[in-house]
C-alpha cells in the first residue's frame, strides 16, 4: 500500500489508483443493494442506495473524463442526447436516478443496473494497467470542484433527486483525498498552501452540512437563496485558490 502523502508524483498516482480501486469495490456493493431494492419494488430503498452509489462515484473524483470511455460509462449526463433524459442511449448512474424519480421500475431499470455493473467491472479490471499523465493529479485537484459548480449546483446534472448538495459534499471529500496525496509536493512548491486549502475546504463543508436537517439532505432547489449563496461563496473562494495548483506543478 503506497504511503500518503506521497513523496513523488509517481507515488501519488499509485496511491490514487489504490484509493479508486477501494471506492469501486464499495460502489459495486451499493449497486448490489440498489439492484435488490429495485427488484423488490422498494423505491425509497432504491433511491437511498442510488445516492450511496452516486456519492461513492463522486468520491472517486473522476472529473473531466479522467478514465476515458470506461469512466464516462459510469455516470454520463444526458447532455447532447437527442431525446434528453428519455433517450435510449442514456445510461449509467444518472440514468438510474432518472428512472427512480420518474416512476420507473424493474423492467426499465434492471437492464440499466446490469449494464452499469458490467461497465464497472471493466473499469476495475483496466485500472491497474491504466497509465495516468503526471499532469492529471494537479488538474484533478481543482477540476473535481469545478464539476460540482458546473454540473451539480447548476442543476444541470440533476435527474430528479435534487441531491446536488450531497454530491457536492462527496466531491469535497474526493478533493481532500487528492490534496492529502499531493500535500508534501504542494507544500514544497508553496509553503502554507495546503493548510490554506484545508481551511477553505473545511469552510465549504461547514456551510454544506448546515443545510442538512435531521440527517437528511434538502433538495437543492428547496434551499433558501442565502444558503445557496453561502455554498457558492465558499466554493468560489476555494476554487480561486485551487486554480493556482496546475501552474504550481508546471515546470514551464
Amino acid at each position, binding site marked *: 500500500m503506497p504511503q500518503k502523502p506521497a513523496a513523488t508524483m*509517481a507515488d501519488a498516482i499509485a496511491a490514487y489508483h489504490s484509493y479508486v480501486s477501494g471506492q469501486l469495490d464499495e460502489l459495486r456493493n451499493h449497486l448490489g443493494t440498489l439492484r435488490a431494492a429495485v427488484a423488490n419494488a422498494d423505491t425509497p430503498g432504491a433511491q437511498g442506495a442510488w445516492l450511496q452509489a452516486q456519492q461513492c462515484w463522486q468520491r472517486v473524483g473522476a472529473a473531466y473524463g479522467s478514465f476515458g470511455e470506461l469512466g464516462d460509462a459510469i455516470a454520463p449526463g444526458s447532455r447532447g442526447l437527442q431525446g434528453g433524459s428519455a433517450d435510449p442511449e442514456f445510461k449509467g448512474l444518472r440514468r438510474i436516478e432518472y428512472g427512480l424519480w420518474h416512476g420507473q421500475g424493474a423492467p426499465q431499470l434492471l437492464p440499466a443496473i446490469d449494464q452499469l455493473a458490467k461497465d464497472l467491472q471493466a473499469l476495475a479490471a483496466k485500472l491497474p494497467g491504466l497509465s495516468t499523465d503526471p499532469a492529471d493529479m494537479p488538474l484533478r485537484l481543482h477540476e473535481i470542484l469545478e464539476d460540482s459548480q458546473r454540473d451539480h449546483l447548476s442543476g444541470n446534472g440533476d435527474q430528479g433527486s435534487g441531491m446536488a448538495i450531497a454530491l457536492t459534499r462527496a466531491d469535497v471529500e474526493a478533493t481532500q483525498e487528492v490534496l492529502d496525496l499531493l500535500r508534501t509536493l504542494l507544500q514544497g512548491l508553496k509553503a502554507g498552501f495546503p493548510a490554506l486549502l484545508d481551511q477553505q475546504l473545511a469552510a465549504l463543508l461547514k456551510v454544506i452540512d448546515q443545510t442538512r436537517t435531521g440527517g437528511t439532505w434538502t433538495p437543492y432547489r428547496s434551499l433558501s437563496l442565502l444558503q445557496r449563496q453561502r455554498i457558492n*461563496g465558499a466554493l468560489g473562494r476555494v476554487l480561486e485558490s485551487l486554480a493556482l495548483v496546475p501552474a504550481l506543478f508546471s515546470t*514551464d
Partner: protein
Amino acid sequence: MNLERRSFLMGSATTAAGGLLVACAPEQKEQSPAVTDVVPFHGDNQAGVYRPADQQASACFASFTVIADNRAELKTLFQRLTTKARILTGGHRHDQALPTEELNGVDGAPPVNSGVLGEDVPAANISLSFGVAGSLFDREEFGLKARKPKGLTEMKVFPKDQIDAAWVGGDLMIQICADSQDAVHYALRDIMKATRGQLQLAWKINGFHNKPRPDGAPRNLFGYKDGIVNPASTESLVWINGNSGQPGWTEGGTFLVVRLIRMLVEFWDRVGLGEQDGMIGRHRASGAPLGKDKETDEPDYANDPEGNEIPLDAHIRLANPRTKETSGSRMLRRGYNYDLGVDLNGNMQAGLIFASYQQNIQEQFEATQTRLADEPMTDYIEPFGGGYFLMLPGVKDENDHLASGLFA
C-alpha cells in the same frame, strides 16, 4: 488550459521548488493612461451621483448579499473593494504595477485580468459607487446596529407595485457606470472574482442611457425626455451633512433609491399622442411643458389652477408641483433604461431603472412617490424590484477606504 506547453514535476518537488516559484514581480513603470476619460475615485463624495456631469452610457446596478462571517472580514471586504475601485476607475496598463493583493504570486497561473478589455484596461469613465442596505446593520455578527442610518428601511411597497422577490434584497449595492457595456462587465467580473467568499449576487440589472434625440435631455422608453429638471449639488438636497440628523459617519453620503420599473411599451404605443402628452405633462417632440416651447421652460401652475393646460394629475405636475412646500422633496434622478428580453407571453420586458439620490428617503422619494400613487401613467408601468441604500461617503485619499467611518 494549454497542456501541451507544459511539463510536470515527476520527482520530489521539495528539491525543485525554489526554481519554480518565479515571483510575479511587477515592473515599476509609471505610465498612466490618458486622463481625459477618468472619473476620479477619491473625493468627499462618491462618483456616479453628480460625477461625471454627463452620465455614462452604460451601467449595472448589482445588489449583493454579504456572506462575510464577522466584522473584521466585513472591514477587509470594504478595503478590498476600495483597492479594486482605485485600479478600475483609473484605467490600467498591463506593465503598470499592481498592489500585492491583486497578484496570486504564481507564475503561469490564470491571469488576473479577464482580458475582456484587452491587456491594457482603459479608464472608460468607469465609476464605481458603493452603498449599503439596512439589512447589513441588522446582522448581529457585524455589531453595527447603533450605526444604522435613520430611514434606511426596506423598500416601501406602493399600492400599484408588483414586487418580485427575485428582484429585491441584498446588503450591498455596487453601481457601475462606464462609457461601454464591456467596461461595466469587466469591472463587475473583476470585483466578484476578488470577493467570492464575501459577496454573492442577489440581483443585478444592466442599463443604458440614450443619446439626446435630437438634443437636450435623453428620452426614456416612452419616447419622452426624462431628467430635465434636477437639483444642483449646491442645493443641499442630496448629500448628507451635519444638519441631516444622521449618524456622523454618513456625512458626505447620500441615499439611493433604485426602483425597477417595467414599462408596458406595447400598451403605451397604442395610446394617442394627446393622451400620452397629458399623462406626462410635456410635448413629446420638444420636451417642453404643455403650452410651452422649450424643454427648459418652466410650467406655470399658478396660472393653470384647473389643469386646463397641464392636467392636475400629469406626471410632472404631481412629481414636482413647484411649490414652496414641495421644493424640499426634489431629488437627483440619474436613471438608466433596461431591456431584459421577453416576458411570459412574448412581450418586451423593458423599462426604467429609476435611480434617485437624496438626503432623506421619506421626505423626498417617498413623499414624491406618494403624490404619484394614482397618476394615470400607473396603468402603463409595473415597478417590480429595487431597494434602498445608503451610498457611502467618498474615499478621501490613498489612506482612506470605503466605510472607514463605520469602523472608526
